[in-house]
């Protein structure tokens, strides 16, 4: 598969892989699993190059494939320890950003306890800043499902890592 489309795809992969990896890392919680996920999604895009007439569709197609692969794989997470230690190494109490790193550790542990779909919904809504309708289109489900999954996921986060939610509520109350 050569030609201008292949060249565009090559350029797209090299330019957008870091952004895709960021999303994939939130979905999987592990760098290696994130790479696998992005790689598989990109491979599906590569298979569909002939259908994707212009370059603008590459990312949308890849992201859709990534979310579908993630939800369908039900990957079991066995990565919490390694990543936590990596994060904790950076959580120097004397430094200003230690609180932020603590929150990241809490978030990482909390995300690992959600279902893949709940996790995907949270990433779409609060990382990619998608609307409920856009999230529903991305995951090929109804808006009602997005609402219910978001509600369940946030309720679980409240129970596991109240700092992530409670501090925002406190922030809101203070306003």
């Amino acid at each position, binding site marked *: 598969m050569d030609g201008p489309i292949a060249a565009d795809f090559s350029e797209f992969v090299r330019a957008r892989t870091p952004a895709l990896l960021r999303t994939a890392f939130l979905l999987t919680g592990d760098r290696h699993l994130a790479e696998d996920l992005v790689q598989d999604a990109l491979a599906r895009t590569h298979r569909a190059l002939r259908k994707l007439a212009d370059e603008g569709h590459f990312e949308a197609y890849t992201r859709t494939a990534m979310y579908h*692969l993630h939800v369908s794989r039900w990957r079991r997470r066995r990565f919490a320890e390694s990543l936590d230690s990596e994060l904790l190494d950076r959580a120097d109490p004397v430094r200003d950003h230690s609180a932020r790193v603590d929150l990241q550790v809490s978030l990482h542990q909390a995300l690992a306890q959600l279902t893949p779909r709940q996790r995907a919904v949270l990433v779409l809504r609060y990382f990619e800043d998608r609307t409920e309708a856009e999230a529903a289109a991305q995951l090929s489900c109804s808006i009602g499902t997005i609402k219910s999954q978001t509600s369940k996921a946030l309720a679980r986060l409240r129970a596991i890592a109240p700092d992530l939610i409670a501090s925002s509520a406190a922030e809101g109350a203070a306003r």
Partner: protein
Amino acid sequence: MSDDDDLPVLRQAMAGLAEHGGSTDLYDRTVHTSRRLGRRRAIASGGAVAAAVLAIGVPVALAQRQQSPALPPATVPSASTSAEPSTPAPTATPSRTVTPTGTTPTRRETTHRPSSPRTSSPPSRPADTGCPVSAAILEEAADYPAGYRIKPADIRCSQGWATAALTAPSPEQQGDGVVIFQYTRATKTWKKVGEGSDVQCADYGMPKSTGLCY
């Protein structure tokens, strides 16, 4: 839900956590995986055709074998009209009904459109729901990465809908949900419509009477 829409701490933590994703160059791995997928798909489609031939051909052959002794030779062509395509092949060879090899009727079953409105009286064939469906067909429709399998015993099929548990290549990757498939009668194909551990009928427009959802 307005509170839930504005969660700055959560958003900030997500943005920070996402930075651990790295920036590996995946182009070569992507192309390699794409080629592997292409080879796997070619194998799967060949297997799906073979499975469809077996899945449909064997029951038809058995049904014809059961019917043939009860029917006098003169009635045999009319009995087989329901399985015939619209081509009015005059005086079909009677030998076809004696010992069907399975190949001839099968091909007609899988590749031809529904016959013209000359419905014969015995409604011996149920509506085309796509059931039963083979694991190979669903694996192809599901389009999962190499190593993921659907076992025939894990397939449930009813009224043009099917669910199947997925067997992961390793225990670490094994999940507890099912993949949901819908049959398209016009094209005689199955497509994946979703997956999850709780299959709610309303999410997919699936009738509760299938017994596959709630």
